[in-house]
């Protein structure tokens, strides 16, 4: 058995408005908002690193959980924008937490990596103990803020999120998850030679079909109706995509938490940043099922179902 115990996050201080981005990509702020639902995003400082901001989110998560790094049985770190590919940021974050032997694994899966980490953590926690999942991204260094890079660069922001999966206790029990990979379309979403590349229309078409399918499959396994889900926490890719998923599931759109307007798409960090903000805003204990879902490079996608304890 495994539980969601706590979330954490960290966002850079620098706020980047649509006005600032629009001037660089030869667009209007209104067009960016209409296409994405994004009003502003955060960009990391020059001195920030993926491991550094991931460490800050990890510490925030452990503080909120009332746990210490020494209690961790494993760490998984998702990032598609790490400065160094191999080794990635996981071992640096473990070192930053003062750990010298705790296994720390990298998940270089942009956008979907945190969901993959949570699903794996749910399976591993009973054997490994508490598993810390981190998503950390500085995508602002992987995009091209030019007219040619307009369609993807308007989306991205920087940030980090974290989650603690515990075998013993938490606010929600992880019931099940489903993960999928389809490498045949891997080229539509990738980071190559340090630069992010995306076929936007193809990604939107794939995601708007695959995310609802994954969620429906998971809910059907457990005889849960989408209308009875208390909250949907999705990778914050694009507000229009989130609305499409809500419509496809015929679930009330207000149950789809979204903070993309303020942070943009922070790739693999976005799911955990959203989860942390959702959890902090909760005024009453969770009373219904919780669904997390993401879609990203690979292509990888999936969903996770948790219920109140």
């Amino acid at each position, binding site marked *: 058995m495994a539980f969601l115990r706590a979330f954490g996050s960290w966002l850079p201080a620098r706020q980047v408005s649509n006005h600032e981005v629009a001037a660089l990509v030869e667009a209007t702020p209104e067009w960016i908002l209409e296409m994405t639902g994004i009003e502003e995003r955060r960009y990391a400082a020059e001195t920030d690193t993926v491991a550094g901001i991931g460490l800050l989110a990890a510490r925030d998560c452990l503080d909120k959980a009332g746990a210490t790094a020494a209690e961790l049985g494993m760490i998984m770190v998702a990032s598609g924008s790490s400065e160094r590919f191999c080794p990635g940021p996981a071992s640096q974050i473990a070192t930053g937490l003062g750990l010298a032997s705790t296994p720390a694994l990298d998940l270089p899966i942009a956008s979907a990596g945190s969901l993959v980490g949570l699903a794996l953590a749910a399976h591993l926690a009973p054997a490994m103990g508490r598993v810390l999942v981190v998503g950390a991204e500085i995508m602002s260094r992987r995009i091209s803020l030019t007219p040619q890079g307009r369609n993807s660069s308007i989306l991205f922001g920087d940030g980090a999120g974290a989650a603690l999966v515990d075998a013993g206790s938490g606010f929600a029990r992880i019931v099940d998850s489903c993960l999928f990979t389809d490498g*045949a*379309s891997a080229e539509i979403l990738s980071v190559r030679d340090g630069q992010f590349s995306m076929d936007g*229309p*193809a990604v*939107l*078409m794939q995601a*708007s*079909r695959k995310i609802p399918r994954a969620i429906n499959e998971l809910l059907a396994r457990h005889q849960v109706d989408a209308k009875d889900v208390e909250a949907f926490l999705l990778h914050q890719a694009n507000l229009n*995509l989130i609305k*499409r998923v809500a419509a496809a599931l015929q679930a009330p759109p207000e149950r789809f938490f979204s903070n993309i307007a303020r942070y943009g798409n922070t790739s693999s960090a976005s799911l955990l940043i959203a989860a942390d903000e959702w959890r902090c805003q909760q005024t009453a204990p969770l009373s219904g099922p919780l669904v997390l879902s993401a879609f990203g490079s690979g292509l990888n996608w999936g969903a996770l179902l948790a219920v109140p304890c």
Partner: protein
Amino acid sequence: MEPAARILKVLQKVSGKQLSPGADESLFVSGLLDSFALADFVSGLEQEFGVTIPDGDLSARKFDTIGKVEAYLAARV
């Protein structure tokens, strides 16, 4: 009804516009489709023609003119 007319019917329903683009006219340039409407267009084609369009075929290049859509469907139906 001819395939092209059925494709146009789906297109007009998805876009909410009564435009009638030529067979080789870009559906994006004509304003009938954007990235999100394209997903609805593909789903509408699946229902209208009783076919399943694999996710791997979800490229805007394959569906950006009525002529291309007609050729694609002719190969699948």
